[in-house]
């Protein structure tokens, strides 16, 4: 009993630390709607600044924090003023990507300067002081200090926000930046001050992080996730709620660790997911507005069903619904959406032509004078060229070296991942940072089905896709309760949950991973035929088959994305991305459309993951669910190439490949360069390389825009009377 009370008490104290992590995040989001994906890395950066001050000046950590605070204040002000303010707009993508880039730069910069060694801020005697509370229950002095600091920070922030003139300006700017300007408030300066204050809070958080536990440059993202969870559980805008959220996560982690030391982190995440499902608006909502979306009608309906426990019903609806969608998608792909296009096009013309009345009048009698076209001349030429290139790529193994084939496998699989992320983020507005969940699940399902069920790898790959799609459905129902930037971090949490759960399965190699036996990889269907055809050894034949699969997947991906975008669903997606409310009001079912895209994308990403791990033949949780490999690189490819275009990822993956081949051996410097490159592109050419080229030269290889074309030889328009 005493042990349990102690555990719970420890959890509560740990919650104080998480509340400290979360306070800065909450402040910044509450006032400028900016979600800082580098928040965790800033905490780690601050810890290293404190460490450096301690070492160079030979002072204790508390004094060092006091000295670090003004430095970090200045850093925060400058960063917001020079960089982040440029990204603040209605679009959530630029701030997300810029802070994601910052996260990569900070992590690798710290690795370069301080190495990957674990550090600690030594506070001396206080570390070992324990305060007995009687009955065998005791609490550490540093732990108590953390909780006290969290309460102190919240009190001070609340005073600042609600009782001072600058706090009034904070709130006014947060409510309505335009009218705030009319009051003579310089919103850029206010935002910079907010970030600067948040950095001071981060310094306090870093002090406690460093005193209580070891840290190294890579622990930032996990702190971001805890902070984010505390904010969501507490409800937006309520700092006391954030404290309660932090304590809930802390207590869940402590209890989980008590049951099984490996379950600590997982228990915290599960508590978060449970809170999200049961009370999406947060436990302690302070303001009218909640981050989690209780407003989308169909979502709440689904959620209500989930809550009522009718999971069987849900699964039935889901399955029926996916089946219907798949068949419908096929039908419309086959019909090529021709009639739809014509109809839509005509409607679009009617509403968009400025000289509407003139058009309406001239329409009678020469209905045929206009037609809607999607293709351009260059696209038609290129379609022919593409067929040629495709044929060449298929025949390539006959004369290419094995190295080239291997490189192409990498390029093609990354291209497929990039296309799907682009469909998700660039077209559906679902900015996910958690696609590694589906890559990893695809890989692990391949291993499980080939090793434990003895299924042939070629059959296993599509099967993995289907299974991952089935997993994505319930995942979506949870993460769709979050919007925008919070959706992004929510997907990341889900990926972590999958990683931690998979690591629990001893049959799949647990935390260390496993290899695919040679018997599986060398007995892929068709391998004997390829060996005979090209006269190569087994391993080379295996690569060739993987290459063909990758090629099929990549081309199939582009074709699928292209067909989706040319169909009515593509138009619906564009409408949702531009304005959710307007799309809903013209009859687009936002929730269904997004869910559909999310599940299809996940299934396809799972297939790519299965294929990649067939080629790698070795899997481990950390590699398979790596946010850097399967999401950061993919985001880089899409953003550099041009988000929201089909051509962009193709350009991006080629550039990425060139960089990877030439610079990857620079390690951390290479990653910092990628991060910097992504930030610069987002600031100065937000549409990427392809976006710039197509704007400049009017290029479109995969045209999806409907354009109005006057028929050749049609009667000239009658003069307008």
């Amino acid at each position, binding site marked *: 009993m005493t042990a349990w009370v102690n555990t719970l008490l420890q959890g509560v104290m740990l919650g104080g630390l998480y509340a400290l992590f979360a306070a800065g995040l909450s402040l910044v989001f509450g006032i400028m709607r900016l979600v800082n994906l580098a928040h965790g890395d800033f905490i780690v950066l601050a810890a290293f600044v404190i460490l450096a001050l301690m070492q160079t000046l030979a002072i204790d950590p508390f004094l060092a924090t006091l000295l670090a605070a003004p430095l970090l204040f200045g850093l925060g002000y400058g960063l917001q003023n020079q960089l982040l303010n440029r990204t603040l707009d209605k679009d959530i993508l630029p701030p997300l990507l810029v802070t994601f880039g910052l996260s990569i730069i900070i992590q690798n910069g710290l690795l370069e300067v301080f190495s990957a060694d674990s550090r600690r801020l030594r506070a001396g005697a206080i570390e070992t002081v324990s305060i007995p509370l009687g009955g065998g229950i005791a609490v550490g002095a540093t732990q108590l200090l953390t909780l006290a600091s969290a309460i102190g920070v919240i009190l001070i922030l609340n005073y600042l926000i609600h009782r001072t*003139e600058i706090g*009034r*300006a904070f709130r006014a700017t947060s*409510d309505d930046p335009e*009218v705030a300007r*009319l*009051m*003579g*408030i*310089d919103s850029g300066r206010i935002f910079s001050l907010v970030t600067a204050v948040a950095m001071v809070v981060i310094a306090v958080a870093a002090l406690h992080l460093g005193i209580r536990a070891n840290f190294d440059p890579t622990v930032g993202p996990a702190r971001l996730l805890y902070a984010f969870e505390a904010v969501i559980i507490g409800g937006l805008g309520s700092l006391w709620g954030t404290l309660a959220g932090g304590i809930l996560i802390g207590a869940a982690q402590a209890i989980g660790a008590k049951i099984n030391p490996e379950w600590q982190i997982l228990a915290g995440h599960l508590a978060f997911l449970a809170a999200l499902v049961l009370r999406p608006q947060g436990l302690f909502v302070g303001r009218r507005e909640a981050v989690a979306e209780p407003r989308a009608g169909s979502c709440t309906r689904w959620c209500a069903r989930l809550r009522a426990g009718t999971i069987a019903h849900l699964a039935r609806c889901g399955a029926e619904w996916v089946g219907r969608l798949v068949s419908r998608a096929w039908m419309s792909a086959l019909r090529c959406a021709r009639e739809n296009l014509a109809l839509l096009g005509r409607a679009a013309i009617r509403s968009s032509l400025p000289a509407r009345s003139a058009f309406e009048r001239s329409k009678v009698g020469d209905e045929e004078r206009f037609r809607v076209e999607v293709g351009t001349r260059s696209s038609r030429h290129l379609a022919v060229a593409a067929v040629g290139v495709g044929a060449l790529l298929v025949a390539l193994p006959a004369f290419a070296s094995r190295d080239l084939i291997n490189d192409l496998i990498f390029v093609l699989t990354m291209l497929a991942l990039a296309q799907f992320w682009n469909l998700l983020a660039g077209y559906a507005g679902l900015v996910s940072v958690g696609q590694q969940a589906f890559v990893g699940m695809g890989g692990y399902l391949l291993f499980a089905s080939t090793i434990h069920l003895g299924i042939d790898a070629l059959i296993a790959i599509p099967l993995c896709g289907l299974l991952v799609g089935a997993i994505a459905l319930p995942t979506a129902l949870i993460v769709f309760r979050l919007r925008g930037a919070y959706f992004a971090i929510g997907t990341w949490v889900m990926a972590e949950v999958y990683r931690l759960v998979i690591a629990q399965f001893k049959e799949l190699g647990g935390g260390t991973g496993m290899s695919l036996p040679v018997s599986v990889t060398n007995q892929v269907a068709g391998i004997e035929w390829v060996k005979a055809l090209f006269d190569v050894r087994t391993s080379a034949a295996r690569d060739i088959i993987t290459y063909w699969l990758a090629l099929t997947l990549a081309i199939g991906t582009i074709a699928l994305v292209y067909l989706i975008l040319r169909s009515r669903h593509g138009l619906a997606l564009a409408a949702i991305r531009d304005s959710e409310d307007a799309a809903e009001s013209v009859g687009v079912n936002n929730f269904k459309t997004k869910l559909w895209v999310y599940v299809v994308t996940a299934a396809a990403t799972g297939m790519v993951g299965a294929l990649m791990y067939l080629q790698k033949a070795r899997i481990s949780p950390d590699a398979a669910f790596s946010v850097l490999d399967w999401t950061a690189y993919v985001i880089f490819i899409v953003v550099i190439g041009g988000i929201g275009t089909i051509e962009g990822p193709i350009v991006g993956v080629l550039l990425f490949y060139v960089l990877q081949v030439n610079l990857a051996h620079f390690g951390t410097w290479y990653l910092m360069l990628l991060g910097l490159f992504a930030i610069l592109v987002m600031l100065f050419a937000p549409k990427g390389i392809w976006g710039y080229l197509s704007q400049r030269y009017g290029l479109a290889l995969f045209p999806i825009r409907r354009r109005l074309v006057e028929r050749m030889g049609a009667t000239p328009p009658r003069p307008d009377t």
Partner: protein
Amino acid sequence: MILLETRCLSAFYGDFQALYGIDLKLEEGETIAIIGANGAGKSTFLKTVVGLLAAEHESVILAGRPIGGLPAAEIVRAGVSLVPEGRRLFPSLSVEENLLIGAYRRLGSGYWTLPRVYDLFPALQARRHFPSHALSGGEQQMTAIGRALMANPRVLLCDEISLGLAPVVVRSIYAALPRIKESGAGIIVVEQDIVQALDAANRVYCFQEGRMSLEGRPGELSRDQIHLAYFGA
């Protein structure tokens, strides 16, 4: 003396031109009204003057000093305040905080202080600690006007202050204008309610599709003239 003048003021939303060469003058101690149909460019005009939309530097002149195209915060400091359409109070601020934020960048002392605003709109005094969204529409409009006055403007711009309010409430709000004028401010009201506008103003401008279609004193304009200027042919 001319307090505010626009010279050939044009405004754009992207490629779309919303105002075409507006010339307008506001004398000291004068109230002028801008009337016109929906989309005539009335609100655009106010937004451009106050710096929310881009303008040529020389096209807006406040007491001899060009202010066109300056950031909104600086124009407010120079002495132009806007009561925005739809009131747009800050929902997380109380009534009194909304008034106080109006004085955020105010320089020195001026006529308008918190007690004088409460004196002008006594209804607000009792509700000073209410959240701003808990007020009635009329009280919200009073708060919005008071908020703009707290900056001690030389020119007060009022965008559709009768919007969505009952006639009796509209009359009580318009009744405050003469006192504001007495404090030395020039006033420009934008109105769709022609009767109200003609009643309150010394001079009237009518906009139509981004152009000035009529200018004159309320007593000297005939119904037909206004009808033509308002609706076009």
